[in-house]
């Protein structure tokens, strides 16, 4: 509503606001931490120094390209009817790869439904991710195998799981850290704000990584907040940083810093990765209904992959052969995903009953038996 109904509501804060309150005003232009400009220029930031070898830069480039390729393949598979739905990360590759590559093996990630790039960095088989979108399971991988939790669809809920997990890390005296991913829309949920409180008072080693992709389905970020999201953290007593979410180097550096900050006992950090959802919310969505093509076009110029490629080329850190090899690998990945999905069998319906509980439950056992008997009656041709 943005309270358009009264003229009064449209006014800016009155000049008579006492000085003691100025600090909480909304005027300051937030600094966007950037290490690689959209033009492919490597720049420095005093607080987030980063040294990278050419090899590392090439590896990041490979990640970005493969993740985008995987994502594009999944979108295509959805169109072909192989998936019921797909939530594309197009445009957010740098935020995910940068933060994902900042993690150590012992660190733990709690994703939403869009963190395919983080999954990639955690070495989760991409095919695992597709099971849920195909409808053969609800994720179903072992979160503890790669320290990558199941996708969480209920907005914000995983922020608390991450915080509790991080509390456990503290209790164990371990020096692991945890990342909770969520979106700009999620910042409004009670659960996310409760997670901020718990993380702060327990000094939990958790990094809140908010990908502000400017949209929560059809709602622009202004529907969720009047001020930059990274500033939410200050209200809970921990640091917040806004990083260029299309800059894989900045995302890497800031997240690495934040994880170390957290794992060293300094408590949580909120990172707002300022990025853009280039595609539809999911394959079911039609963004033409609510946003202008110009906006999307403008963000194209900030493409996270292009700028790293420019750097690699300009600095002569990668040759034609490298790019060709990545393209080929990309093709192989696409093929593997395509074939993998097509070959994914439908589960046996008794899956319904399999894991409701870890120990026997009389009602489930009874219903399973009834179901099995009923299903058998068809096979036996007894019925109808």
């Amino acid at each position, binding site marked *: 509503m943005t309270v*358009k109904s009264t003229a009064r509501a449209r006014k800016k804060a009155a000049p008579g606001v006492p000085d003691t309150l100025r600090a909480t005003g909304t005027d300051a232009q937030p600094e966007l931490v950037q290490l690689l400009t959209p033009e492919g220029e490597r720049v420095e930031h005093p607080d987030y120094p980063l040294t990278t070898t050419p090899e590392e830069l090439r590896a990041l480039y490979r990640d970005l390209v493969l993740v985008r390729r995987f994502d594009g393949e999944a979108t295509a598979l959805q169109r072909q009817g192989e998936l019921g739905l797909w939530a594309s990360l197009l445009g957010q590759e740098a935020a995910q790869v940068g933060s994902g590559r900042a993690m150590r093996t012992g660190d733990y990630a709690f994703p939403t439904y869009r963190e395919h790039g983080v999954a990639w960095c955690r070495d989760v088989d991409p095919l695992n991710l597709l099971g849920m979108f195909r409808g053969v399971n609800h994720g179903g991988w072992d979160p503890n195998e790669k320290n990558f939790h199941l996708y969480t669809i209920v*907005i914000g809920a995983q922020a608390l799981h991450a915080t509790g997990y991080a509390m456990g890390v503290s209790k164990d005296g371990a020096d692991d850290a945890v990342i909770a991913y969520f979106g700009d829309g999620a910042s409004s949920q009670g659960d996310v704000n409760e997670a901020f409180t718990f993380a702060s008072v327990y000094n939990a080693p958790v990094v809140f990584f908010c990908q502000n992709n400017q949209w929560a389905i*059809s709602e622009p970020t202004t529907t969720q907040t009047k001020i930059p999201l990274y500033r939410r953290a200050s209200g809970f007593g921990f640091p917040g940083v806004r990083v260029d979410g299309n800059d894989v180097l900045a995302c890497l550096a800031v997240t690495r810093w934040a994880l170390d900050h957290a794992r060293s006992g300094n408590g949580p950090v909120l990172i707002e990765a300022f990025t853009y959802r280039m595609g539809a919310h999911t394959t079911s969505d039609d963004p033409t209904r609510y946003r202008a093509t110009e906006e999307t076009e403008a963000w194209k110029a900030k493409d996270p992959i292009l700028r790293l490629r420019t750097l690699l080329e300009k600095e002569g850190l990668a040759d034609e052969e490298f790019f060709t090899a990545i393209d080929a690998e990309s093709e192989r990945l696409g093929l593997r995903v395509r074939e993998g999905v097509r070959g994914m069998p439908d589960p*046996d319906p008794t899956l319904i009953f399999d894991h409701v509980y870890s120990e026997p439950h009389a009602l489930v056992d009874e219903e399973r038996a009834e179901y099995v008997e009923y299903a058998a009656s068809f096979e036996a041709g007894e019925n109808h």
Partner: protein
Amino acid sequence: MAGQLSIAKALNDALRKSLENDPKTVLMGEDIGKLGGVFRITDGLQKDFGEGRVIDTPLAESGIVGTAIGLALRGYRPVVEIQFDGFVYPAFDQIVSQLAKMHARALGHVKMPVTIRIPYAGGIGAVEHHSESHEAYFAHTAGLRVVSPSSAHDAHWMLRQAIASDDPVIFLEPKRRYWDKGEIGPAADLALHDARIVRPGTDATLLAYGPMVKVCLEAAAAAEEDGRRLEVVDLRSLSPVDFTTLEESVKRTGRAVVVHEAPVFLGMGAELAARLTERCFYHLEAPVLRVGGYHAPYPPSRVEEAFLPDLDRVLDAVDRALAY
């Protein structure tokens, strides 16, 4: 409104009429503005009534219902959209402890004319949390009214009646039927909480609501081929339930099968079976049987057909009922 309208359009029209008829009616929800809601039930309404009447809210269900309560206290008549069934739980406290109880706590001094629209139940091949049938939670909660239409006509008129009600109404929209079409009559022909006998019969009564009414009608049609005349009653309202109509039917047929998508254990069928058994004890030739979901989280879509009651499962239950 001559001609056939989809349930989705029938609802959209009902919202439009409600906005037109009462300036205090406001719609609230996620993505209901420019997008018109993920199911387009509010399509075009923000354009026509403005951002002050069709309000895109922050992504926080407790916040939506909680502020709707505040708006109601100020004299507004909020109609809330919860985007999908599985996303109503963050608002559970505001619904069951605040909204449902406010009128009683205030000894009737304040009214709570809040309608909460929820696209619910399964059958559309969705990912998890998008196919929940949680009507039992709400129907068990005193202070809420709970209804679910099954046709375009009822969708339209029941929504208008729900919005006009001074009590909170949980309005459950059978999402997989959104695109089913039907004629919309010129007026509501039943009170909001009346059941409707949608197909008369004599051998057994099928009791259903929302998405399962169609399945039951199909089952009844199939049974007819076998010479069985099944009566189908569309409950329409789950709180209160129109037991007068149900009892009359069951006493006539002597047998009843309740069909819903929600898990059977403590689902609506439990109450219907318990109460009808009490009210029709000497008329029942068989126990009231229940066909429904299993005691399991709603499964991945590739197996949802096994979870959902279908024609075969309904007829299997009818067979069992008739075998007594």
